[in-house]
């Protein structure tokens, strides 16, 4: 949210090609853009794709009309660069086809149910339902960071955009070129992974 205010403040300078404003833009958006690039091209090329994306962004900024938010515009350029790279490497794999290869979370959720679809046992009792109290637990935060880094790239991208950055679901679908139901599946799985970590933490005080 803070990003948006800074974007607006900088937009004129960015259109003029102001270098300091551009550096601030890089500072704000490089990491989330990397998350998106990874979701599309994988780890190996993500950094390179970003270098190319920044050059395209720098070139296109004077023509940025503000019809979408700057954030969406940036993410769309990253998406396009990532796709171009994929087709160059002629190993084009659409994101759609990779969904379903990360069944672990769903598996372990499934194990909590009997054959007839009822819970095996009651979900564990939590000491606290307060997100704020949970956020204060340093050890839990470390456990969560570790879990986020093990999410599949597409889950991580969707989680980052939806829950961390609270972007509109439809915008996320457009950027990643995924159907709404696929985005929601990825989102739900990411959330379940986090929930499992909190569950374990509440029960054992560790992860």
């Amino acid at each position, binding site marked *: 949210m803070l990003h948006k205010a800074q974007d607006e403040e900088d937009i004129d300078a960015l259109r003029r090609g102001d270098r300091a404003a551009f550096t601030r833009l890089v500072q704000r958006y490089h*990491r989330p853009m990397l998350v998106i690039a990874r979701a599309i091209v994988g780890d190996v090329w993500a950094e390179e794709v970003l270098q190319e994306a920044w050059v395209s962004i720098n070139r296109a900024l004077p023509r940025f009309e503000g019809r979408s938010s700057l954030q969406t515009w940036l993410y769309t350029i990253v998406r396009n660069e990532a796709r171009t790279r994929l087709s160059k490497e002629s190993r084009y794999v659409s994101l759609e086809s990779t969904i379903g290869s990360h069944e672990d979370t769903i598996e372990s959720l499934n194990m909590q*149910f009997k054959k007839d679809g009822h819970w095996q046992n009651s979900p564990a009792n939590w000491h606290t339902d307060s997100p704020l109290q949970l956020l204060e637990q340093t050890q839990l935060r470390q456990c969560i960071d570790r879990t986020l880094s093990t999410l599949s790239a597409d889950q991580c991208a969707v989680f980052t955009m939806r829950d*961390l950055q609270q972007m509109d679901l439809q915008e996320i679908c457009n950027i990643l070129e995924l159907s709404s139901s696929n985005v929601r599946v990825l989102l739900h799985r990411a959330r379940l992974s986090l929930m499992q970590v909190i569950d374990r933490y509440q029960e054992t005080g560790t992860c």
Partner: protein
Amino acid sequence: MLSCRDLAEKASDHIEKKLSFREALSYRLHLFLCGYCRKFVRHLKTTIEFGQRLPEPEPLSDEEAEKIAAQTFEKSDQE
């Protein structure tokens, strides 16, 4: 009738208001009758709010950002 497993699968969709009217109705009916699922959904909502309040990825350091900006401007000048 929705099973607990179905409900757990649909919980994010319900929270995101993406269920059809009928689906939402059977979802809420199940929730009304099932304490285990109510607990599950409460935990999921806590998890979501927790996630929303996590800090965004750390911004780059000044040096890192300047390096990338320098590379970008250099490349743009070449073209």
